[in-house]
């Protein structure tokens, strides 16, 4: 049993819903108790989809448990087939139905429907949403493309000399973080390289499209969390290689172009010659000097977190002081990345643990999910959202990809926006007693309002008390001097000073101690 306040991922059947909702022509019959239909609102409210997810729930109740829930399932599946006439039917159970063991797969097959029936077993008490999405996508791909697989051991035919190279784009689902925009961005990039996109899946694909996945020369795997298992199967079955680089950021997008060119057997020199995302110049421009060395804490799904850490370091000049993910399936990748930045990898889906680590690291900026946005708000640290779980704000009306050239530009804007502007930061330091520039002031472009009046958050205070023996105290003057330091560095100054004092066995922190510590730790 695990105590959970907030969860990063839903149950695995929600992952299955993300796949079928992204697709066309598939209907999902879910054996589930009354109430599990809440999941529809994720799609209709958060993503604002104008249609209901293609899901029929059996919505059994206590009185059904005494009777025949298996019959209930069969009727629901038959009715759903007749009403929606899908090309393929996906069947499965949610957490409660898993316990009553009705075997949706067997029941659905017994109906002898004239369409493929794909049963997915998603162990709800072990696995989570992304795993459920990956497994569902893999099972659908296998069921639809499997019949067209070449005999094992046969060699892939070389592409005709005059034919354009082709690829599939794998991974985008419903409720994905900017998947809609990433697909558009990457499709345009591939078109510029002269590569034809054979199928995009799951987003927008029908079962008949999945059936022709094997036609492409290679796969572009945008989201390993949802497409990794299917991509591996396609590699084994159709000898279709897959990209490994996720094109998030200026550098990764360049590497991605090179990788794609290699897989497609084409020359990308001219495209690379013109490759100049605006973000690269902005990062070098003098106004960005103030970004240097900002301490950043990164948390998200593994793909986005690892990418963000690289972008933060190489393309913003930040220092990564924390790197973590809730994607346990990608623990190895995350640990390797954490090594690059000399930080402890944080692999957890415990919101409280993430909050604790962020408070400890005392970063200048948090790059996280909507959960970290709340943590950062409490700690009064600026934050930009880089990954699912998503919120209605993560489906902006405008085109706003994370991947490719425009994606790199979006990252620059999105990460810099929550920070104090360069000269503003200096003015704040110089005129900290100015009534408008006082330490409680928020960045002027974000409006001065609500956040400014909030007292220092309790958690920070708690951490402070825990770290500090009772004997150490601040003199009135020192406390006042500390108050002149801008709020966004004040916590760090306090901690550094207290550490400095403790290491020297001081009992009272004076103004002198404060400046001694500043000189000692100076950045």
């Amino acid at each position, binding site marked *: 049993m695990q105590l959970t306040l907030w*969860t990063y991922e839903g149950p695995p059947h929600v992952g299955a819903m993300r796949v079928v909702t992204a697709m066309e022509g598939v209907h999902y019959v879910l054996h589930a*108790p*009354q109430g599990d*239909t809440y999941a529809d609102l994720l799609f209709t409210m958060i993503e604002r989809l104008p249609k209901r997810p293609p899901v029929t729930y059996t919505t059994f109740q206590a009185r059904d448990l005494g009777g025949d829930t298996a019959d209930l399932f069969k009727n629901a599946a038959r009715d759903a087939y007749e009403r929606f006439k899908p090309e393929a039917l996906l069947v499965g159970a949610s957490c409660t139905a898993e316990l009553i063991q009705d075997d949706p797969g067997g029941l659905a097959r017994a109906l002898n429907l004239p369409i493929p029936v794909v049963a997915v077993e998603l162990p709800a008490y072990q696995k989570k949403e992304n795993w459920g999405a990956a497994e569902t996508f893999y099972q659908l791909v296998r069921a639809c493309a499997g019949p067209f697989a070449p005999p094992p051991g046969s060699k892939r035919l070389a592409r005709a000399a005059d034919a354009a190279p082709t690829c599939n784009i794998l991974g985008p689902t419903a409720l994905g973080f900017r998947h809609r925009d990433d697909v558009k961005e990457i499709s345009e990039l591939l078109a510029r390289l002269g590569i034809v996109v054979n199928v995009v899946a799951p987003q927008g694909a029908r079962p008949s499209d999945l059936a022709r996945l094997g036609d492409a020369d290679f796969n572009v795997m945008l989201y390993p969390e949802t497409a990794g298992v299917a991509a591996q199967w396609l590699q084994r079955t159709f000898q279709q290689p897959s990209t490994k680089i996720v094109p998030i950021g200026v550098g990764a997008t360049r590497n991605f172009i090179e990788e794609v060119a290699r897989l497609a057997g084409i020359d990308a020199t001219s495209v690379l010659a013109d490759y100049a995302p605006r973000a690269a110049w902005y990062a070098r421009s003098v106004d960005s000097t103030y970004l240097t060395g900002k301490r950043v804490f990164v948390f998200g799904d593994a793909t986005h977190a690892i990418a963000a850490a690289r972008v933060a370091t190489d393309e913003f000049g930040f220092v990564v002081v924390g790197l973590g993910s809730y994607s346990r399936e990608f623990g190895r990748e995350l640990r390797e990345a954490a090594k690059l930045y000399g930080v402890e990898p944080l692999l957890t889906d415990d919101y409280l643990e993430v909050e604790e680590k962020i408070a400890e690291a005392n970063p200048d900026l948090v790059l996280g999910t909507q959960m970290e946005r709340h943590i950062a708000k409490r700690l009064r640290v600026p934050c930009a959202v880089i990954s699912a779980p998503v919120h209605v704000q993560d489906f902006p009306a405008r085109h706003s990809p994370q991947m490719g050239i425009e994606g790199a530009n979006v990252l620059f804007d999105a990460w810099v926006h929550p920070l104090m502007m360069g000269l503003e930061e200096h003015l704040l330091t110089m005129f900290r007693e100015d009534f408008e520039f006082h330490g409680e002031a928020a960045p002027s472009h974000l409006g001065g309002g609500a956040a400014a009046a909030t007292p220092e958050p309790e958690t920070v205070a708690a951490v402070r008390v825990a770290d500090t023996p009772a004997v150490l105290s601040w003199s009135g003057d020192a406390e006042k001097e500390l108050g002149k330091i801008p709020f966004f560095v004040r916590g760090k100054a306090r901690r550094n000073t207290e550490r400095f004092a403790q290491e020297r066995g001081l009992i009272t922190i004076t103004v002198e101690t404060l400046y001694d510590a500043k000189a000692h730790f100076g950045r």
Partner: protein
Amino acid sequence: MNAIVTAKAPSRGCADAVVPMERGQREVFCGLTGIIWLHRKIQDAFFLVVGSRTCAHLIQSAAGVMIFAEPRFATAIIDERDLAGLADCNDELDRVVTRLLARRPDIKLLFLVGSCPSEVIKLDLSRAAQRLSRQFMPSVRVLNYSGSGIETTFTQGEDACLASLVPILPAAPTNAEPALLVVGALAEVVEDQMRRLFAAMGLGPVAFLPPRSALDLPAVGPNTRYLLAQPFLSDTARALEERGARRIAAPFPLGVEGTALWLRAAADSFGVSGARLHDAIALPQERARRALARHREMLAGKRIFFFPDSQLELPLARFLSREIGMELVEVGTPYLHRQHMLPELEMLPVGTAIVEGQDVERQLDRCRAAAPDLVVCGLGLANPLEAEGIATKWSIELLFTPTQGFDQAADLAELFARPLVRRAKLRV
């Protein structure tokens, strides 16, 4: 204008109507959803769902409540170790509760909330609650109720929660004066207005269930006369009757008429004179009527269709039909408690299409065929219907907004007018 309180319609309305029961996919929340408002109402209570990741995900998603960074609810997620018997569920639960209470010393009342998985594996939360109560009393009392989807639909979670409180309410002395208990979670602003009205009527003592603090439980006994403020409290009512309390039958306090009749039922029961009642309510009642008139212009004659959701559908339909002049196309309700709903049924127009239960696909077919001007439905259906060109009102907002009483009657009408006003304004 001599009768302040509208007389009941002479006809029996829908009191004897045969209500068809529909079986099929129910597009409704489970009772866990009630935690979203209950945890705000009882401010020193904590709700611990014993369930699955789905339960945690539901509560987190249902109302976008993530604005409360440290909520007073959480989920103890059952995992495979618990199911395989590798871990003892009761030991695990004790461990989780101990950790939780250590984090939150401000909590006085802890509800263990049962879910579909905990019901199916027959985890006995009442025994767990007794055990934990013994351990943590007197600082924390532990109760349990079920909010599972197999047992409860949406607002029935509040019913189950309040019913679990009834056995621990202190006993009123046997010779106690008659006392009024108002039952059902109300917004604080509404509760305060009701208190002022009862005081003006000279009616008292008055207590509310649930209380704002777990330390402030109202006494109950044969002297207690209770008035339901919400239409979905059948288990709570039964538990109160078992403690000797008697129900004052009344329509629900939605709209000017509903509020007036609700107050009059209390006045009659406590022997408050007609003149005293008149003096107490004439002013707010008149003010409410004036405020309401504005929305009647937009809404009168418009056709409304209710999907079943909160059990508020019947009182809302009565209000919209009688005071606003809307036409009722279909009124779905997840359950129909005929006894509690009798005063409401009597006031509904003869022939109103009331449907109990749900088959969402067939209901959508009927809805599209009827092409109503406004549909009241859950969040899963609202945007898809809007995309088809049908105006909708989210039903959950009707629970989160103060709607009961005179001074909220116009606000309630405005909730229905807003989608239509917005449509009229937009030029996109």
